[in-house]
């Protein structure tokens, strides 16, 4: 309808070998120091969390009555806490739990967000209004409040219910972004072309819309892992999350913080791993954004569309 500006056409990349999207993404990814460092750190953390416990014979519930509040030593690598539990075993177990919770929450929340957001954006009208109202409603409360209220009721159902709660309150902003991206995709000619060919709406959503927001979703889900872990630890710190005898980084930090000055090993291993983990996730997410986001070109790499874990932690 409008007259286009100078053609944006770039020279045909008649390069000797086809430069696939994945290849381009990989090259960009590898070029970002942050991303590589983040990915490596994450890999190590996972190895540590799931392989580390096999290196010691202490389990996180064992109590060594001969060693209370002991500093790191050959027997207890990271020392013991005030009732004689091995900090190394405990922290690794807590890390495991926190990682699992983070991954699951991010997965559920992203799936929910993408489906709801895409449907709202694509169908528009009342579907959209209803979804928007619902999102606004959920956003009116900091999720922390609701989870804190509900969690005493779920004390007996275990940590999976906790995962569900975190996911239910963690998808709204992503859904909003997916919704607005869908709305602009819907105006794109390739979606219009599919519509005019008579392709079924759900097929359009799954074949055209979602693949085209996938870069965003991957990046967002990555960062959401960090956000979920931050929420989990925060809630657990106040006793609203993972319940004893189970441990997570949050409960460990809560237990250790009082003695942090006198017995630093009880606090700093858990706190350090938490920060390193979230930092690695953020670096990875940032690097992935550079690699996957087609709009982050040469001149404006690293532009950020969305928040990082900070505002997610609250939800």
């Amino acid at each position: 309808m409008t007259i286009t500006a100078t053609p944006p056409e770039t020279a045909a990349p008649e390069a000797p070998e086809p430069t696939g999207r994945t290849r381009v993404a990989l090259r960009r990814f590898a070029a970002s120091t942050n991303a590589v460092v983040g990915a490596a750190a994450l890999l190590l953390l996972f190895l540590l969390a799931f392989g580390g416990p096999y290196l010691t014979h202490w389990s996180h519930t064992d109590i060594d009555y001969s060693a209370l509040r002991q500093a790191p030593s050959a027997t207890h690598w990271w020392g013991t806490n005030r009732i004689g539990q091995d900090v190394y075993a405990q922290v690794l177990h807590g890390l495991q739990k926190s990682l699992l919770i983070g991954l699951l929450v991010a997965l559920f929340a992203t799936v929910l967000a993408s489906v709801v957001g895409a449907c709202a954006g694509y169908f528009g009208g009342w579907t959209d209004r209803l979804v928007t109202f619902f999102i606004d409603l959920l956003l009116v409360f900091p999720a922390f409040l609701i989870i804190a209220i509900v969690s005493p009721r779920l004390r007996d159902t275990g940590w999976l219910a906790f995962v569900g709660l975190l996911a239910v309150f963690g998808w709204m902003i992503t859904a909003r972004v997916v919704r607005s991206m869908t709305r602009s995709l819907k105006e794109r000619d390739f979606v219009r072309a599919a519509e005019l060919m008579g392709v079924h709406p759900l097929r359009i959503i799954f074949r055209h819309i979602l693949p085209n927001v996938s870069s965003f979703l991957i990046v967002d889900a990555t960062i959401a892992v960090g956000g979920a872990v931050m929420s989990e630890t925060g809630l657990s710190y106040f006793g609203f999350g993972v319940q004893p005898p189970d441990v997570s980084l949050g409960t460990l930090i809560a237990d250790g913080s009082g003695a942090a000055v006198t017995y630093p090993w009880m606090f700093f291993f858990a706190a350090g791993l938490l920060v390193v983990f979230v930092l690695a996730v953020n670096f990875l997410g940032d690097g992935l954004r550079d690699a996957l986001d087609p709009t982050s070109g040469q001149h404006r790499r690293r532009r950020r569309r969305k928040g990082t874990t900070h505002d997610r932690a609250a939800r």
Partner: protein
Amino acid sequence: MRRIASRTVLAYLTKRLGYYAVLLAVAVFLSYVLSSLALSPRGYFEGRQPPPPASSVEAQLTALGINDHTPLMDRFTTWASHAVRGDLGRTIDSGSVGEEFGRRIGVSLRLLLAGTALGTLAGILAGAWGAVRQYRFSDRAVTLFAFLLLSTPTFLLAVLLKIGAMRLNQSAGSELIAFTGEKTPGLTGSTATLLGDRAIHLLLPTLSIALGTAAAYSRYQRGTMLDVLGSDFLRTARAKGLTRGRAVLKHGLRTALVPMSTFFAYGFLALFTGAAFTEKIFGWHGMGSWFIDAIGKSDVNSVVAVNVFAAVMVLLSGFLADVLHAALDPRVRTS
């Protein structure tokens, strides 16, 4: 033309207010229902030592309007009919929720306002500066620091600050930085002494809120600023003969602030949660710590009151963001 523009804005804002009122009503209802279903004040009374007689528990619960034998809808209508008249009911210890509210709201607002103002300002400046000096050492340093802060949950940051202060005090041998409560209890002296005491108490809690906020805002501002730095209108400004610095200041920064107003609304959610942690950790008797204590006591009315407060604050910040957006962006004013 100007009058028409301002009238459209006014109509738009009125409509937003209406929408927010609906949201608020539904939200309050849901939070009442949820709190009543999830919390068990009966259990709180029955668990007292020595166990009170059943009839007394029953009477207490009924008096507070939180008896789970009364149908939920009846409880809500009773509560709501009082609430619209400004009476938020009684706490589980028979105090007035309204009075408690009044005592604590000031505490929370002092903390939130100082933290937000400081954090936003620092974040915007750091972000804009980082964007202008993209990829130089200073930008990288700011970025790394921001990432580090963003990866530290508020409660951990607060705890770390507290530990740092303890160490400092230890090595100094005296209490340089006070971090418990709002003021030193029982301290007397001139107004200056009292104010200074308050300022020292305010330091760590404010920092723990401001740092996180600053980190988040610096990332946003850097992003929007980078977009603006590559924009055509900045080039036009320089083509007119403005130096790069002046063009960035007069045309860039002003435009890059526009999208920030949207983040402002979202940011508040995080802020409130952060404040709850901060209050609890630094022993401030604000809304956040009230909430956490109230849950422990299954104090339904207090929990609902904090929920209402949070909802109102969130909506208010959303509304402020709308106003700010309209003030910053002439495109919103006319369409």
